[in-house]
């Protein structure tokens, strides 16, 4: 047992030294966990922000101008007036996602008490934007319209003010301003952790295989399991250290995202996840034993587990069977884990089950990989 641990330690130190000797690789890793996290957190937004709106104003009345003025940042950009002939072209190129078409004589009809309608064209290819943005526009313009009509009638509509009503007291927990930065910052770290772990652990095996060094190790009193364990331990430690720095220094301190859960639990969770995913990386390396093959296998695997993890699009929107199926991916478990811990302040009792699942997944991957380890060595060149 002592010999095993000592071998793993020796090989891990060697591994870290090799990893750090590649200056460009280290620079890429640092970029990935610093600048890339900031850009991703601040750049993309799932809220309706700065949505471009165009107006075709056939009415050119005080009311139509007033309605246009009601469309305000930060949700929307200031509306741009366009000619009706231009609308199609602008929408085709995605210049505007919302186009309001105010019919001629609109104000006149409103004042007469008719109920004319404004047509709203929505670019439904902007999925995250279209639904919510339409809701916002409906309520903003509705309010503006009702205050216009009541002012025109010389006061507030009395019936409505007198009627008893339930007042909603909305309380958004964990991320009160629904800030995308909070969410994206953490999700980006998960994505980075995933890609880095997958590629480094797998590529480390393939590099040793292609250079013949792994054969050399196996002739020494070292077992395949020890080699794999050392790869996981070494790469895992470096990656977890980077991810923790990124979480606390970049996301927490620089971007101001509160971290509710405990440092210890986060560290533990990251280690378990990295163990699990590095094992998958090694398994893929065993299945695709040359560097070009491995790189190509990594791409769909990474994109699938990441895009379906419930981090980039809501897990609840997936079809039921898919939600069940994707639980086999450690990334799905980890996204839920880190959101629970960072945002919701969960403790071990809340997330212990997920940790256990990730651990078992990792051990399964590793066991399969080691079973096929020797046959991989035979398949060379």
């Amino acid at each position, binding site marked *: 047992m002592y010999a095993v641990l000592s071998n793993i330690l*020796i090989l891990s130190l060697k591994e870290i030294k090799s990893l750090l000797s*590649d*200056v*460009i*690789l280290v620079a*890429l890793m640092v970029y990935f966990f610093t600048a*890339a996290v900031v*850009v991703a957190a601040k*750049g*993309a*937004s*799932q*809220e*309706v*922000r700065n*949505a471009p709106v165009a107006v075709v104003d056939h009415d050119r009345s005080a009311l139509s101008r007033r309605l246009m003025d009601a469309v305000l940042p930060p949700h929307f950009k200031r509306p741009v007036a366009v000619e009706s002939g231009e609308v199609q072209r602008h929408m085709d190129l*995605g210049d505007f*996602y919302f186009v309001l078409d105010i019919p001629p004589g609109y104000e006149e009809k409103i004042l007469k008490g008719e*109920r004319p309608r404004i*047509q*709203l*064209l929505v670019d*439904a290819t*902007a*999925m*995250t934007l279209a639904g919510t943005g339409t809701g916002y526009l*409906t309520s903003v313009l*509705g309010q503006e*319209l009702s205050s216009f009509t009541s002012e025109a009638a010389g006061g507030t509509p009395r*019936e*409505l003010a007198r*009627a*008893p*009503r339930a*007042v*909603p*007291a909305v309380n958004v*927990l964990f991320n009160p301003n*629904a800030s995308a930065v909070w969410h994206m910052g953490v999700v980006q770290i998960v994505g980075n952790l995933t*890609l880095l772990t997958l*590629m480094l652990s797998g*590529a*480390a095996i393939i590099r040793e295989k292609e*250079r013949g*060094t792994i*054969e050399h190790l196996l*002739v*020494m009193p070292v077992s395949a399991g020890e080699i794999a364990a050392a790869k996981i331990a070494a790469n895992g430690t470096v990656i977890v250290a980077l991810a923790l720095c990124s979480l606390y220094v970049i996301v927490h301190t620089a971007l101001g995202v509160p971290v509710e859960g405990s440092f210890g639990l986060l560290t533990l969770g990251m280690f378990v996840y990295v163990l699990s995913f590095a094992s998958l990386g090694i398994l893929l390396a065993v299945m695709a034993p040359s*560097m*070009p*093959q491995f*790189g*190509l296998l*990594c*791409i769909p695997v990474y994109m699938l587990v990441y895009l*379906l993890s419930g981090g980039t*699009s809501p897990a*609840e929107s997936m079809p039921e069977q898919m939600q069940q199926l994707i639980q086999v991916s450690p990334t799905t478990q980890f996204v839920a884990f880190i959101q629970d811990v960072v945002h919701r*302040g969960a403790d071990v009792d809340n997330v212990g089950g997920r940790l256990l699942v990730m651990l078992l997944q990792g051990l399964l991957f590793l066991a399969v990989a080691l079973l096929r380890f020797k046959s991989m060595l*035979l398949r060379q060149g």
Partner: protein
Amino acid sequence: MTGEAGLPAVRLEGLTHRYGKILALDDVSLTVPTGTTLGLVGADGVGKSTLLSLIAGVKIRQRGRVEVLGEDMGAGDARSRMSRRVAFMPQGLGKNLYPTLSVMENISFHADLFGLRGRGRSARIRRLLGATSLLPFASRAAGKLSGGMKQKLSLCCALIHSPELLILDEPTTGVDPLSRRQFWTLVAELMAESPGMTVMVSTAYIDEAENFAHTVMMDGGRILASALTADLIAGTGSRDLEEAYMRMLPPEKRGREGGFRIPPYRREPGEEPAIAATDLTRRFGSFTAVDHVSFEIGRGEIFGFLGSNGCGKSTTMKMLTGLLEPTSGEARILGCLADAGSNDIKLQVGYMSQAFSLYEELTVLENLLLHAKLYRIPLLRRKEAVDRVLDRFDLRRVRHATPRSLSLGIRQRLQLAAACLHHPSILILDEPTSGVDPAARDLFWDYLIRLSREDRVTIFVSTHFMNEAERCDRISLMHRGRVLAADTPEGLRRSRNAATLEDAFISYLEDAQGSGEGAAVSGTAAGAEPAGRSSTGLLYSLGVVLAFALREGRELLRDPVRMFFVLFGAVVFEIAASYGISFDMTAMPFAVADHDQSRESRMLIREFQGSAYLRELSLEGDEAFSNVPELFRRHHVKLLIDIPPEYGRRLLRGESPEVGFHIDGAFPSVANNVRNYVDGIMRRYNASLAGGAGVEQAPLEVRFMYNEIFRSVYVIVPGLIMLSMVMFPAMMTALGVVREKDLGTISNLYTSPATVLQFLVGKQIPYIILSLLSFLIMTLCAVLLLGVPVRGSFWALLGGAVLMVAASSSFGLLVSCFVRTQVAAIFGSAVLSILPAINFSGFLYPLSTLEGAGYVMGRMFPCSWFQIVSLGSFSKGLGAESFGQVYGVIALQAAVYMILAALLLKKQEK
């Protein structure tokens, strides 16, 4: 072959070259007359390879002047002219060959690079292959050739363009004696055919150098002697060049003068053999690498393994070390089965593989320390053990250097040092002295003999050097997986009545081979006919691009796994992701705590239960809502509705009571949607409370464009195709350059007249074709399987895809030219393209909502532009006329990546 009379072939002046702190060449000046042959000899790491690569122009010159055939090699245009007149064969077995390509394909590729065409071309190829007796093997993959055949093929490739100066760097290292003999016969015959040709050769075999007209001896980066070989031997009063060489060297570098005296080996009776093989057999598919091999090696015996390259020596050794399991038969080490792999046995064995297998990125010292630790040498003795081998193998000088920067011979010595470090009782050494200089070899054998006789260490060694074989107690001759003969060296020689062991060995081999290999050169007429050559110009350029493309394409075709991953992986990704990624409004789970239990509160709850966007969950045991945050942690609800006591009564009293809505904000877009649902439902509820009065009329008539039924899949699938067209091509080309640098085949670019741009564009073409195939399959799958039609123009979409794939594969090449390792290449290409592709392309989040650096990143990469084309053609029903500007931007980006890559990739090595 027009060497101008009097003009030297090579003239060097004050040439100095350093690798970091190590001085490789120290003010070297040399003149080589045209039409001569020159042998370059010297110990390992004295600068032979550096000198030859500088002359060939493949290495960037640091200081001094190199003139080749009258032109200064410092100038780029001179180098490119010279590449047509000079040929260089780099060190290492078949280093410039592509292992998956056949013999004919390899040589055709070189012919294409030099623009050879017409009848002369095929005649020249046949002539060269015929002369090297490779013609019968024309369709065999280069990787499956024996070492000797590889070197002959390498030579053919180097000679394809009838060079005036031929530079060979240790061409026969690691080649068996028979192949070596054939190789030199071939070179001599080819030289006889083209009298003006100058040949420069570096070699570790001094006896080979004796056949060259000139000899240059190097030591410590300087030239010790440069003279006619005959003068050199006479001048030092030596019998042969080997003796002259030894005399020229400083005494400490001379090795073992006067030969070895080896005490006879005596086997203890009844002692168990150290190594025993019984009917050892190993098959790879239908190929039998080792065929019923049996032998016993006693403790302390030196047992030699001789045989042509690829005869099964290395496979046998791997089975002895437990790396390979035998197909049948058994191998025992110290009485235990070798493949059982117990650590006790492993500690007793030291192994050195044929190819370098230590860590390139660790220093010499670090590598040795790693071995010391893994072989469990106690801490206190570790330093002493490492110090001892540093001295014994003369590595102290380079202990802080990485093996990457060391010459072949010194790397071999390092491997030997690592194998011997832990005092094993058995040493298994696979060609340990290939590429090692004679003096170092002698020192090493001196050490081996002492180990064997004094410490009774068993030594199992394979070699191509006959003088080493003679020092073994017994040798075994292997050929095509079988043992031809096994006896003492003297016994073998006598059984063939041969003068030397080498003659005996060759006669055994020739018997075994019959007349297959080693046929004489036949017919010289074809050789004289010059091959047609389209000089410069467009046709030649296109030809070279095509040559690179064909070569890369063939390599890709031979690797069906990669094609499968690209074609199949992309489709699996498309189907799974389109099924899973969704922004469709689905019912979000909510729970209610009704502290009122009145008719009014139940009415309110019914409003929420009736919403299509919400579904109720019951929280067993947690209905009281005592700790709201904990509820969200424990249950997967997004909304908690808290109706206070007295709610109904207050409402009836005409008051406006509050209702609490707690929303889980951890996923902001979900929280926003839930909030919108709450607002809408409450507005409706309040309106109905007011009896329908003042109900807000929605002032808008909403029309969803392009995706009328508002389903994610119409938007997601075009995005997934965009993602694949960004990621896969970049990943494929990212290894393109850095892998060729690792394998050594990049030297073909350095030595050929092809430009960097031709090389890059050619490499890119097969991947563009494969990616477009993948694009077509993905589109087909979208239309037929996922029900996402191309509403606009398919051709407009295809046009965008062509540009996109060109851009992303150029980006991959740019990464490849920038990084130094393959790991960094695959990681870099993924890391740098994933953010713009997923976050800032307009795929998940609309482009116009991006801000700051994200927006810039989105616009600077082609992903967001192609997303416009993909989404436009699929969902918006657009045609090419809408994309003119977009096409232009993507094409520009592709061009910028390619130009940057071409600027980064140098046509010489450092």
